[in-house]
């Protein structure tokens, strides 16, 4: 028996030792501990030295050209820069390029800043631009530069891109994270993980998967407005309630995507600011138009009239959003939402249903992802469609399965979302163009394809706008999808946070942010 208790005692001692020693790396290196919250040690000029951001997802890959998640993007935006920068006013402004001009319809020339350098100290030149774009053309993200045929170095600070065709949205494409400029010298030096080297205000410091990723300020940043906080740490808190409590406790300074049903606790806290603005994520109900009976346009319109968007909005996000008629994400160029569309009208829905030849109703299946808000939306839609005699069976699957099933055209009806805050072509072409991989509606219409091409390539702004409005009106009437609502962007943070650059799509820029003291 003594042996048993000595074994237990030894286990206790061993465990205490383990616990005491463990996490040393985290604690020692995080400039503050995970437990004490953001220690107000202060920088030299009235700001807290570290900024800690609680993310809603795990950071999974920091190689720019192998990833596409917002959680990675917000880190990479602090360490890397592009030729141009997309502002939250919806325009592109110079960044690594000082100016640009179209030499002709298919050639665009960029002049680069001459004093930019990477965090390693190597100067950033035209060779790095060519290296990055050539590498991107051969990577997972090659679609970002699908219209770029080649990159030619004219001199150290001038590059010319040869395009397949004139493209109204080339600049927003060049402002995206996957094509941020990387260092050719870093790759050629044989260093491990050379993609960490960028020219941004911060440089990569440490990443422990599942725990944190930290970037530190570049002391000799080449630009005129360097970062303020000495370091920015991104910590995943997957459970939303834990993230909220961590913010209230002061363990983190920013809580990304706080749960809507817990906002009141944050709003009541005098040390926290809750910011809410119109987002760009459009949630929609959609049809596989290749599959009968949903190839019937009138039947689709009947369904559109039967859905109560206000009820959907309430059930999905407690009303924190904007119901929408058009198929384009709010805030994008040419957004137009004044068409008649199909408002909630049960009598009109019943009439359209009869006109479509289904006066006695029908049964169908709605495919959804097994997460909020889809499960909530599906229940409202199911009840709405029941009112006009359509029996809906809800089929719940994981995101990955839903995407594959939709791509293969196995679904009848489905719920999905599309998030875009910079390029209209990323909406029109990807969702509605004949044969596009993301065209889960399996929609195909030569007139739509033609209008999409005009919006993408027409130089005359007025003609382009006309085509855009016509395209939206046409698609709302054709009804391959029923737009439901745009969810608000909600974020909560320490009331002393300054310098935020929030984007409706979630790809925020934290490189100017700090906690003032």
């Amino acid at each position, binding site marked *: *028996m003594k*042996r*048993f208790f000595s074994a237990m005692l030894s286990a*206790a001692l061993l*465990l*205490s030792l*383990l*616990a005491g020693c*463990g*996490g*040393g790396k*985290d*604690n020692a290196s995080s400039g503050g*501990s*995970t*437990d*004490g*919250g953001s220690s107000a040690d202060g920088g030299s000029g009235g700001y807290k030295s570290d900024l800690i951001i609680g993310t809603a997802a*795990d950071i*999974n*890959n920091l*190689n720019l050209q*192998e990833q*596409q998640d917002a959680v990675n993007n917000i880190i990479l935006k602090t360490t890397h820069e592009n030729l141009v920068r997309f502002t939250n006013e919806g325009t592109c402004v110079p960044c690594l390029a000082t100016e640009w001009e179209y030499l002709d319809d298919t050639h665009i020339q960029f002049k680069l800043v001459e004093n930019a350098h990477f965090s390693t100290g190597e100067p950033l030149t035209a060779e790095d631009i060519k290296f990055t774009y050539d590498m991107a053309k051969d990577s*997972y*993200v090659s*679609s*970002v530069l*699908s219209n770029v045929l080649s990159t030619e170095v004219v001199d150290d600070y001038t590059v010319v891109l040869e395009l397949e065709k004139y493209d109204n949205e080339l600049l927003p494409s060049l402002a995206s994270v*996957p094509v941020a400029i990387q260092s050719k010298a870093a790759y050629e030096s044989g260093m491990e993980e050379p993609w960490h080297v960028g020219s941004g205000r911060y440089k990569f410091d440490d990443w*422990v*998967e*599942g*725990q944190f990723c930290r970037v530190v300020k570049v002391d000799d940043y080449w630009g005129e407005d360097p970062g303020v906080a000495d370091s920015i740490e991104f*910590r*995943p*808190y*997957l*459970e939303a*309630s*834990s993230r909220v*409590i*961590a913010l209230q*406790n002061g*363990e983190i300074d920013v809580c990304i995507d706080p749960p809507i049903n817990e906002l009141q606790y944050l709003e009541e806290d005098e040390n926290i600011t809750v910011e809410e603005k119109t987002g760009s994520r459009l949630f929609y109900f959609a049809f596989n138009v290749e599959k009968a009976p949903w190839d019937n346009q009138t039947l689709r319109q009947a369904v559109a009239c039967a859905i109560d968007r206000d009820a959907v909005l309430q059930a999905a996000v407690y009303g924190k959003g904007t119901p929408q008629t058009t198929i384009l994400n709010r805030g994008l160029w040419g957004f137009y939402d004044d068409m008649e569309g199909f408002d909630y009208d049960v009598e009109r829905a019943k009439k359209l249903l009869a006109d479509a030849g289904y006066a006695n109703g029908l049964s169908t299946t709605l495919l959804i992802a097994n997460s909020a808000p889809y499960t909530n939306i599906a229940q409202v839609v199911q009840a709405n469609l029941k009112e006009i005699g359509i029996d809906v069976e809800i089929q719940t699957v*994981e*995101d*990955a*399965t*839903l*995407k*594959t*099933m939709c*791509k293969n055209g196995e679904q009848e009806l489905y719920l999905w979302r599309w998030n875009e805050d910079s390029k209209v072509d*990323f909406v029109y072409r*990807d969702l509605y163009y004949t*044969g*596009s*991989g*993301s065209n889960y509606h399996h929609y195909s219409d030569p007139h739509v394809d033609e209008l999409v091409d005009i919006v993408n390539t027409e130089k005359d702004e007025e003609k382009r706008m006309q085509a855009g409005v016509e395209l939206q009106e046409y698609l709302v009437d054709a009804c391959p999808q029923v737009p439901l609502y745009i969810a608000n962007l909600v974020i909560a943070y320490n009331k002393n946070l300054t310098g935020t650059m929030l984007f409706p799509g979630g790809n925020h820029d934290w490189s100017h942010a700090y906690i003032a003291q």
Partner: protein
Amino acid sequence: MIRYIIKRLLLMIPAILATSLIIFVAMNMTGGDPVDSLAPENATEEQIEEIREELGLNDPLLVRYIKYMGGMLHGDLGVSYVTKKDVFATFAERLPATLKLACSSVFVATLVALPLGIYTAIHQNTWKDTGGMIFALFGVSMPNFWLGLMLILFFSLGLGWFPSGGYGGLRNLILPAVTVGLGFAALITRTTRSAMLDVVRQDYMTTARAKGVPEKKVIFGHGLKNALIPIITVIGMQLSNALTGSVLAETVFSWPGVGRLIVDSISKRDTPMVTGSIIMCCILVCIVNVAVDLIYAFFDPRIKAQYAKKG
């Protein structure tokens, strides 16, 4: 004894083969193409095909499985589709957190359950016994994500004693260990009580008392010692559970363990990461089982003699 251990370790080979095959087939049957999660939303068919070719997804399932096992024979568990990192290295990075949480939660559970189980057994059919069993029922029924959140609200937000989450030292460990441990404590309490009840009715206990042995020594020296085998079994089982099944607590407390890694990889259809991690978990569970067998021998000379005979 050594031969017995070697035999048990060799039995891990068919277990690993069966596990890997089941995971491969299951991941293939769940639906959802990993490429759809990896490729950008606007990737063309050609790009998708290139990625598929690069990852070897165009090969038939059996060919992929044989290739994977071939790599494993050389110690290569593959490379994650998502992070592009070596699966073994990623698992090894997460393992200390999992071991720390698993050991500490089982320790908490044992610390609570063993005295409570003995206490309820020697006070059978009294209000003390009923109270202990209500605690056990509460522990079994309580979802640990709920308990975790309640503990965070009370001890972290309310009292400010512990951080709400994150990986670190002892202060970070206490709430997750208590959350997972209390669930385990319930089962260990019930097993301890039941094993002790069997023992306290034995003749040798009566004899010991008749000989004037003090009650404490009767219970702990004669009773508990003979009741330990089922208790050790259930503690071993809980340790195996904790190694792989603490995913909810890991999520609530932002604890970077193996469970969270596996669940996240499943949702991304990251087959190499899922397969490699589960194989490693399988090995860990086998090792725990062997360790439990050895502990039997440590406490019971009859079992030790049996091993020696078989070995």
